[in-house]
Every structure is written in structure tokens, then in C-alpha cells.
């Protein structure tokens, strides 16, 4: 198939790329733009590791045509760290064990970002429902809830809490 020139806005920057009409957004991000943070885990939108924001909405880039995203603002995990430092959710995921192998983490970070943008104070059920679009095989999700709670608190109070030492927890 013949390639066409399209313009994609990713993380605030415009990129002109030549892609086949059938090219998927995930392929273009990873192979053409070198943004390998979004992961390929299943090819059929079951796992959510490829989640990106398209005009603020969490979408799975493995089943999205790149050409259909022209003119929209795409945010990938690479666009999340603010001003050269970790965003609250990224810091909290690290501190609270929300990421183990880390392969699903970029997708989860994007899903959480989209959740918090819509609902800054989600209940545990809201969080679970939102996270159910992404799969993780390491964490059993529990420590992600703690991380998300901490990130919300940090955004609100501008400070973060570290996990306590084990002695006081057992």
C-alpha cells in the first residue's frame, strides 16, 4: 500500500510522518517516532499496555489507525513527566510498588491520568472500574491503589508520603 503523509501532534510537538493507511498508531509511535514507552502486549486491545490519550481520552493505540488521529492531540507516557521531574503518579507508582516488571506501567499511568482528569476524587470502585481496562500480571493491582491514593493526596497537598518501615506495618 502506498504511504501517505500525515501530521501527528504527539506530546505537544508536531511530526510529519509518511505512513501506510493501514498503519496503527502504536506502530507509528514506536517505529517512526521512537516513542517506545507505549508497549505492545497483545495486539487485540485486551491488555491496555499501549494506552495513550487522544484529545484527553484513554485509547488503545494498538487498534487505532494512525491516520485517524490527524489533528488530534496525542499524549504518550513520555509526555507525562512534568518539567523534567516525575509526575506525582509516576513517583507514587515507584514508591508504593505499583510497578514491578513495568511493562504494563505506561498504559496504567495513562489510564490513571485520564481517570483523574475526569474525576479528581474517585472512589475505590471508580478506580477499579477504570483500571479494569488494563492488565497486569505482577502486582495483583493492590499496590496500585495505594499509589493512586498517594498521588491524589500529593497533587492536593503538594507533598508525598513514603511507605512506612515494615516494623510498624506488621
Amino acid at each position: 500500500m502506498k504511504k501517505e503523509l500525515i501530521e501527528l501532534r504527539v506530546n505537544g510537538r508536531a511530526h510529519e510522518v509518511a505512513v501506510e493507511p493501514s498503519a496503527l498508531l502504536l506502530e507509528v509511535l514506536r517505529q517512526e517516532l521512537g516513542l517506545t514507552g507505549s508497549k505492545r502486549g497483545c495486539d487485540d486491545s485486551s491488555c491496555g499496555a499501549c494506552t495513550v490519550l487522544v484529545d484527553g481520552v484513554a485509547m488503545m493505540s494498538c487498534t487505532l489507525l494512525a491516520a485517524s488521529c490527524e489533528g488530534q492531540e496525542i499524549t504518550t507516557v513520555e509526555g507525562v513527566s512534568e518539567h523534567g521531574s516525575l509526575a506525582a503518579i509516576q513517583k507514587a507508582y515507584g514508591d508504593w510498588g505499583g510497578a514491578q516488571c513495568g511493562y504494563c506501567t505506561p498504559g496504567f499511568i495513562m489510564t490513571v491520568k485520564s481517570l483523574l482528569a475526569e474525576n479528581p476524587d474517585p472512589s475505590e470502585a471508580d478506580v477499579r472500574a477504570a483500571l479494569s481496562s488494563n492488565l497486569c500480571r505482577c502486582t495483583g493491582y493492590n499496590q496500585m491503589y495505594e499509589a493512586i491514593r498517594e498521588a491524589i493526596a500529593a497533587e492536593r497537598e503538594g507533598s508525598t508520603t513514603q511507605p512506612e518501615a515494615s516494623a510498624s506495618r506488621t
Partner: protein
Amino acid sequence: MDNFSIIGKPTAMVDAAEKTTGAGKYTDDLSVPGMLVGKILHSPYPHARIKRIDTRRAEQLEGVVAVVTGKDAPNPYGILPVGHDEHALALDKVRYVGDNVACVVAVSEAIAEKALELINVDYEVLPAYFDPEESMKAQTDLIHDNKPGNLEKDYHHVFGDPEKGFAEADQVAEARFIANEVTHAAMEPHSTLASFELDPHTGNLGRLTVWSSTQVPYYLQHKLSLVLEMPMAQIRVIKPLVGGGFGGKSEVIPLEITAAVAARKAKAPVKITYTREEVFWAHRGRPRTIIDLKTGVTNDGRITAVSARVVQDGGAYCSYGVVTILYSGALLGALYDIPNIQYDGYRVLTNKPACGAMRGHGTVNVRFAFESQLDELAAKLGMDPAEIRRRNLLQPPCITVNGLRVQSYGLPECIEKTVERSGWKARRGKLPKGRGLGIACSHYVSGAANSIIRSDMPHSTVNIKIDRDGGVVVYTGASEIGQGSDTMTAQVAAETLGCSLSRVRVIAADTDLTPIDIGSYSSRVTFMAGNATLRAAGEVKKLIAAAAAKKMGCTVEDLIFRNDEVLKKVHVGTAAPGRPAEQSSASVSGRVEGQILRGSLQQKRKEEGPKDRMTFEEAVVAAIDFHGALTGTGSYAPPQEARGGKHKGAGVGPSPAYSYSAQVAEVSVDEETGEVTVHKVWAAHDCGRALNPVAVEGQIIGSVWMGMGQALSEEMVWKDGMLMNPGLLEYRSPSAVESPAVEPIIVESVDPEGPFGAKECSEGSLAATIPAIANAIYDAVGVRLHESPFTPERVLAALRAKKNAKALNLTEGVDPTSPARFREHGGSLWFKGKGPERHALDPSRREVAARGAD
């Protein structure tokens, strides 16, 4: 009182930022100039002889660079020295649907895929075996010619006098348990990138570099050397970030060899990444296991004897199979005090993807059977299930009847803590109808005491280098796969040297740079690589201490290394004014000043006479001036006493230390639909010492969660050797909505040989979850489930059987190839033996018919 500054503190993983920002690179994220893409052609038949492969049309397609077949790499290999029965690409036979036949190397994935369709393979289809008990009866068309009865291996062990033991029992329970097949489904699909360099001296292809998603870089280097007939020294294996393994990447997967063979033939770098479906075919998961178990107990709850006959459906190749079947028997011991054990284990070959090692290797399914039966016996005796477990505790230090040495043993405390936290005594049996509590225990090795490659080499070696900048670089072959290996290494080094964590940089899992470590499997890294790190850091510390003691005019025994300082003991707790000892831990003490580098500051200090404290950098500079280079090395090999007995197969099971777990699960069962919901699991785990509590808790929760998946929903469903659910949703990996709260409870028994007392924490908890849920279902609705996963259909069938109602056969008369009524899950699709004929419209059948017509 243990007083650590880094050990025991919750610590973010050293690679956490890489993972949360997407900056970290996994194998599939890498590319090198001129890189080509490889795609593999898989067998559509479960068992067939390859008569001819015609690759000419594929080779002629524009964009195709090479087509590789078995002839390009004819040497057999396998992870176990006794099981070299695999070829990266099939030579003469395919043995499962998905077996590897050929590989196309092309400039793009799309072209490679197109080329796959142009390869013509003539197969002679052979009768296939799908059920292990049927497969054992085979006389002809064996899966491997040298394995009569399709039997990979069988073991028959008798410890003590089981017959006498059963005679002494007041109650005996006997039942068949079945645990269906599960797989790792790590989030990262396997990926390998292979690249050759040209040799400047010969002008031909020279050194090979392989980046791969592996848990075992050293074994990969070894197997590549076997197949490619290259010296190991010419092969460099680098493990980038790995997106989860759970055992699925703990052996050499065909694509890893194929990528290298393809790169050699294409004379260009080649990357192969599996699709999710291919990951399911690559498998190496936990085999479907049939367990005939018999346990005897006295009226006071003491176990007198256990007899187990275990049949594992191993799939088409040996893989780790011989080890798996041995673990199933060996780890009947070392949890409870069992005086008499009989074990008959059969590892059987079938025409399905090979099973291998998966989290809790070999122990999980037998533990499900054993803990369920123990619960049943407690019920027969009218005894509290927690109490019957307490009555059978070991009295360590001891050696079990099957030769396993147990030293630290936190099981009693694990049972106490879970019972207390879950409100067991007050709530069990008193919950509303349909809701119940169940308890179960498990254990696991902290690394195998005997390596799979029989040799006396250390299992882990670690090098440390410190330069004048005071930066500590630790070189370890241990493989970070998400469990926190690198972080553990950094913590142990920093604690030993008394420096801050930010000084330590870990270089890991690169066979050119790092000394040998046999890999991340059998939960060995913290114990073995941790001990090697401890020893390496101890060596370096000795050098620094000698120099510092000289400077301070004291003996090395008077020195304490802490918080980036080296101080005399008298100063501990009496920090200098305005400079509390704790404070310095936050900042890396002092920039490296030019004067220090030139040594003039020391000169100045020297003139001031002996001091009471030095910064870490000052001490390091003094040591380098004093000794020359500042490096240290440490290695670990399990002690002889921990290596087990002398019987055949005694090599598997022994470990320098065992972890222990006790769990209580709270479930509810919907009696109308048979659906089981797990509300909460309390999981106490004896990890010796929690070096990093956040990581330990994460591992416990993750294990429990994965056990819950196997208990409730995960199952590989087969028909005619064809996997019916090769996708993450169809396989039913639980999502956030289906996942319960898990309360991890850390128990620290402080092992005498573990690094700072630490033991295993990543696998041992998994096995207890399945029987804890089964026992909770019994408490809730009074039925015993003997087959996992406990799907609504199985639970409903058990409930109806209890009421003497007619069994519901939900798939009666259903054609599995007809999507309208096809249920992918529920286990009813497990057709015994070969199952029904393929449907007339089944594509594979049409293909056969069409070929017949030609």
C-alpha cells in the same frame, strides 16, 4: 536490636523511574541500524512428519532476505542436560500445533508475514496424543523415538515405611485431584535481537551479541554456543528490562536461537518478537496434573503417611519436566513433619506445547491436593483446620525424611498471624450462608541447592569496583525481571559498605561485563546473589577499613561504616554537634573536591593527626592510595549439608533455606450460578528478613493473586491439540475488578545463612492460595472441589451432585467450532482423549480434504 540504615526500609526500585516514564528499554524497544524482522512459520498439526519444505516462492518475494529452516541449525538443545530434545526449527517432525517450522527474515513485518504464506510444507500427519494417561499406553508413533510409552521420566520414591504409617492411621482419605494447565502470560511477549560483528582478523562473521527477554542469560549463552557451534566467549548475551517472566523465560525459547541463526544466514541484525498468540504456544507453563493422593492421620491429628501418584501432562518436549516431576514429590516434605512418604511421579509427553517451570515450580498442584485433603481429614476428626496444621509442625533445625535440611521455620508464626488477622476463630463457620473461610499453607525453596548444570562452580558471583569518586559499581549476572533483583543488590552493597543507596550503580546481566549467575529462577536471587554481593562488599570493606584504621590510628574492629561515613565505635550515637549521624544519609556526603583527588586535603588532614571520623570518599581515597585498585569479588555456592540425600532424583528439592506461608481466604459462593468471589486473602509469609518491605509485600500479593487466577479462572483449554483461548481476555487473567484485597503479613524468621537473614518471597505464597480458596468454598457451601480452576460450571456441578440433582451438561451436543453456542471457558470443553472429530467446516479439515483431492 538490628540496626540497619538501608535494609528493611521500603525502597523504590532503582529502575522505577525508567519504568514509570517509559524511558526504560525492553528488548522489543531496541533497534540497531540495518535491523531486519523475523517471523516464524508454525505447524498447523499436532503431530506430523515433515516430508518437504519448499521455500523458493517465499525467497523470491521482494523484501525477503532469507528463509531459515531446521537444516540451518540442526544441533539439538534443551534446558536440562538430560533433555536435549528440541530444535529451534523442526528438523523432521512437528510435535504440537504451533511448533516452529521455518523463519522468514524480511525488511518489514508485513512482508515477512506475506512470505510465510508462500512457504509450502508437505506434512505426513501422524496420530497424536493429548491426554497423558492415554499417551502412556502408546505403542506406535511415539512422540520421541527414544521415549517408550511417551514417558519422559518416572520416579518412585519411598521414605520411611508408608505401609506401616497407613496401618497406624485412624483416618485415611483418598481422592483424585486434577489441576488444569495454566501459563505465565507475562505482559511482555518474548523478544530477541541478534547481531553479528565482522571479525577484523578473519574478515568473516565473528562475535555475536544477543539482547533477549530472558531470566537466564548465562544458560542462553550456553545453548547458543551449542547450536551455533561457536565458543561461549564469542557470544555476548545482554538482558535489557524484562517485562515479567514467572518461569516462562527461565529457559531457552526457540525464538532466541532462531533469531541468532537467522541473523547468521541473513548477514544482518534480526529481531523476532512473538505475538501474544505465539507466546501462548511457546508456553512452558504449569502442566495439567493428575494427583491420586492418600493421607493418613491419627485421631489427634498427626499425619502418619502420605502417598501420591502424580501424572503430569508435559507437552511435546522435556523442557524442565524432569525437575518439575521431582519437585512435586520432594516438596511433599519440609512443610510439615511427615514420617512416611511414598511418591510415584510420571512425566508424560503429549502433542501440546511443552510445559516447563512456572512460579512455584512443581509444587503448586500437589500442594492444592494435599492441603485440600488435610482440610477434609480435619473435618472428619472434627478438628479446627488451623489446629491440624499446628499439630504437624517440624522441629527445626532438622533434616526431613526425604533429606531436606530445614533451619529457619516461620510457619508457626505465619499460622498464628493469619488466624489472628482474619478473625478466624470468631468468624469461621459463623458467616452468613454462602460465605466461608479457608486456610492453607505452603513453602518453597530459596534457590535450588544443586544447579541444573552439574558442576562445582558458584551459583552466583558478584564483582564490586570503587573509584576515587566514591561511586560503587556492582557487577552481577543476576537477572532483574521485575522482582527487584537490582534493587536488592544495591541495598545489600550499600548496607554492607555503609554508604547511601544513590552511590551504588548496578550493572547486571550482561555476559561480557558481569560474572556468572545462573539466573532468576527457583527464587534464588536474593539468597544466592545477595550472599555473593554481601561477600564482595565485605571484601572491599576490609580494604577500606584497613586504610581508614591506619589513618585514624585504631584497629579495624573499632570502625563502623554507616551513613556515608567511617567512624570510630565510640562515636556511634554521639554524633558531632550540629551533624546528627542520621542526617547524612539523605545527602551523598560531600561533593568530590579537587583537593581530595589531588590528595592535598589528606595531606592537610594528616598533619592534623588521627581523626575520629572520615567521609566515605576520604576513606575510599585512602584505601586506593594504600592498596592500589579497590575491587572485591564474592561468590556463593550452597553448602554441602544443604544439597540433599543420595537417592536417585535427590538433587531436586534441596535448598539452603525454605520460605513458609499460611493464608486464610474469605469467599462467597453464589449457589444459583456457581460463581465464586474471593473477598479477601490474608497472607503471612516467612521471608527470613524483608530487605525491602514494599517489594516483599508486592511479591506476596502478586503470588496470591496469580494463585487466585489459577484457582478461579485461568485455564488453557484444548481441543485436538489446539489451544482454544490464546488471548489474554480469553485466558481470563483477572482484571482489577475481579481481584481481591490481599493483606500481606511479613514474618521474619532470620535465616542463619541468608543475606541479613533473608529468604525467598516471590513464589512460596502462590501454592497456598488455591487450597485456601477450595477450603473456603467447602466452609461456605459444603462441597469439595477436586479440579481447578473452580469455574462456575464445576462449582455448580458439585453443588448439584451434593443435592443428588441431575448434572447439568452445559455443552452437551454443542459443536465447539460453532461460535453461536461456543463457550470458551468453564472446563467442559476438556474432551477426554482425542475428542470428537473435527467439524466439517473446520478450516484445517477442509485443507486436508483439498490436499487429498489434488
